[in-house]
């Protein structure tokens, strides 16, 4: 039986969240899988594969005390998942420019049309409050080839003063 859950936790960031959450999960009989955790806008966000021999309600009971004490909002989904399902990225794209609404939609829309399957995306806003800059980094799979993506990226970023770079990833297996 598939016993994987996706646990998401979000709340105001403070030191020690990961240690306390994972200790509670371990004590509750959980095994952890792949995870992504990061601080976003002063909040700490956790997306975590949890293997657990029990119901979602039982898992909620395991996580509730620690989530409450850290003021984290939990969300639990039973998921159709397995480990060892990695897809290898073959392209990396970075985009940056003066921040404004619509950059992501425009750029990723053009890239999706050119065959990009996004496997990992992180973005950040830096600069100052008066002059914010937006920086986005994507790893993905180019289903229709790198050239198609390069052309799409050039068109999508040409007029807007957005800078973009596309780098093929050739993984070395030794």
């Amino acid at each position, binding site marked *: 039986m598939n016993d994987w859950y996706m646990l998401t936790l979000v709340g105001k960031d403070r030191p020690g969240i990961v240690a306390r959450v994972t200790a509670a999960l371990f004590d509750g009989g959980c095994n952890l899988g792949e995870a992504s955790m990061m601080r976003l806008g002063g909040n700490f966000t956790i997306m975590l594969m949890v293997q657990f021999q029990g119901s979602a309600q039982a898992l909620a009971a395991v996580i509730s005390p620690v989530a409450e004490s850290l003021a984290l909002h939990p969300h639990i989904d039973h998921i159709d998942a397995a480990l060892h399902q990695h897809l290898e990225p073959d392209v990396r794209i970075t985009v940056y420019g003066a921040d404004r609404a619509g950059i992501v939609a425009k750029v990723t829309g053009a890239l999706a049309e050119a065959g990009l399957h996004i496997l990992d995306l992180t973005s950040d806003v830096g600069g100052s409050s008066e002059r914010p800059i937006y920086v986005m980094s994507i790893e993905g799979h180019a289903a229709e080839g790198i050239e198609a993506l390069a052309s799409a990226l050039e068109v999508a970023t040409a007029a807007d003063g957005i800078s973009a770079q596309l780098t093929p990833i050739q993984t*070395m297996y*030794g």
Partner: protein
Amino acid sequence: MAIFEILTYPDERLKQESALVEQFDAELHGFIADLEETMRAGPGGVGIAAPQVGRFQRIVIVDCSVTRKPVPNHGRLVLINPEVLTWDGMEVGREGCMSVPDYTGNVIRATQITLAAQDEQGQPLEFAFEGFEARAVQHELDHLDGLLFLDRLVSRRNDLFRRKVYQPKPTKAKKAE
């Protein structure tokens, strides 16, 4: 000919340092043929080191002529007792390993190296490698010292991946003397 079983991490033997090859004989040549067959049996592999099959001697095979996208390469190379003479430049790149299935990670390697080694007869060799092939050679040499690419991982996030290929430096005009 035979295909060896590949040791996979966390097998402790992968952390072992390998010894110099001293006998360049028929037994060695037979082993090298089998090591190469093992490398070619793996999907997409461009290199293999003897300790990956449980023989702790300083022998690696590299063949970067078989990559999906062509890269500068010296073809099939058997490098015995290899030693890096010089390093230059550095670049982050993605690596995987037959001894670490289902995981790839980012590793910083020198972009140019020169290397001394011996061939299958014990004769001296010297090479200059660059880019992808230099990365493959460094990855395989690490195995001889008991190191895996896991020992050299850098973050997958927030790395700068600018490469000369896509960001050519403007060529500086030579200064007039």
